[in-house]
């Protein structure tokens, strides 16, 4: 259970948003909407703990996140705007090093299975430099399949994906919600997800 009370964010001396409240329980999703520059990414970075909030508090399972940073991060998967992909490494190496950074050893067969499911069969050993934008995006999303964390925070996960990949991603997100996972994401498009969910609109 993740609850936010009165979150606010400053950019320079301008207040980007204030008094943002939301609550996401197990198996629920939250879509954050808003115009460009409304502060969607800033809000996600604050929730993930990458940036401090100007005001407000975030509670995870009833206790402030600030008091349990490490436990919170161990349960969190954050995929930001940046692809987190090294062009020189292969899809397989990218996936395994990302898992290692996240503190989880990922064996080769599990990584290969994830890449196959995400639609990169036969491209596992190519340097990601030669992949298209959408395929790079898929390499990044393959991390979702290897993750056992409860809270997923995804910044624009549907960008640069084709129709089939969007459907596949929805399926993966549904599975995560069905396992009792929590999901917070930003998107400009309407997304059909199972489970209970709500949307939050930033700015006016």
């Amino acid at each position: 259970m993740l609850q936010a009370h009165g979150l606010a964010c400053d950019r320079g001396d301008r207040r980007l948003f204030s008094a943002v409240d939301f609550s996401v329980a197990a198996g629920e999703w939250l879509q954050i909407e808003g115009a460009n520059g409304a502060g969607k990414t800033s809000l996600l970075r604050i929730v993930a703990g990458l940036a401090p909030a100007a005001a407000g508090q975030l509670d995870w399972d009833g206790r402030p996140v600030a008091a349990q940073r490490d436990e919170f991060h161990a349960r969190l998967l954050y995929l930001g705007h940046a692809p987190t992909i090294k062009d020189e490494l292969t899809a397989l190496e990218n996936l395994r090093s990302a898992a290692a950074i996240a503190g989880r050893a990922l064996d080769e067969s599990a990584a290969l299975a994830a890449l196959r499911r995400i639609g990169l069969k036969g491209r596992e050993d190519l340097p990601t430099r030669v992949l298209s934008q959408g395929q790079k995006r898929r390499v990044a999303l393959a991390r979702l399949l290897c993750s056992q964390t409860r809270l997923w925070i995804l910044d624009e996960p549907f960008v640069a994906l084709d129709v089939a990949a969007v459907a596949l991603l929805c399926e993966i997100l549904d599975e995560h919600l069905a396992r009792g996972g929590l999901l917070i994401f930003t998107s400009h498009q309407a997304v059909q997800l199972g489970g209970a969910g709500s949307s939050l609109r930033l700015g006016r």
Partner: protein
Amino acid sequence: MNAFAAIVRRDLLLAARRKSEVFTALFFFMIVVSLFPLGIGPETALLRRIAPGVLWVAALLAAMLSLNRLFAADHADGTLEQMALSPTPLALLVGGKIVAHWLTAGLPLVLLAPLLGLQFDLSARALGVLMLSLLLGTPLLSLIGAIGAALTLGLRGGGVLLSLLVLPLYIPALIFGAGAVEADMAGLGAAGHLSLLGALLALGAFFAPWAATAALRIALE
């Protein structure tokens, strides 16, 4: 500890795929050192006197060449954010990056130095001391450099600022490193200088990853 080893392995793999970066610094070191005997001429007494200083200054500059990229690529592609969110302490991961930087930018200089030292007519014993001083000194260069690289991360014109920030901090390493070789050639023994260099290295290994981490957190916000 797993994540530490994974970071070292990943950075070494990246360096192996981007060989030109490693070789640029190495050739820079070779050429700068070789320019001095060519410019000064075959006066062995003079060359022997300036050798420690020349080799050490060239090593400082060569080690600095690759500092720009120490965190920049990870910052640009979002890997640094993932490191900050890792359950493994960020300082440990930063330590892994520093180790990998030394293995690709420092260790080759140590191995190449005796060969280049021959151009200055250094004795075998002096070459040994030179290597030992570089072996203790170059990790210190990577450690101090990491702080500078973290502080200038994401700044425009960060490259020049980085040199201005880091080079003055390299001075103790330069004094004790070059001093060790000079003291040995003067028959005074290099032990004192090398111990001080070792002490600096111990101090740097303890504090530099934390300082770099603090600077990275500021850059991430």
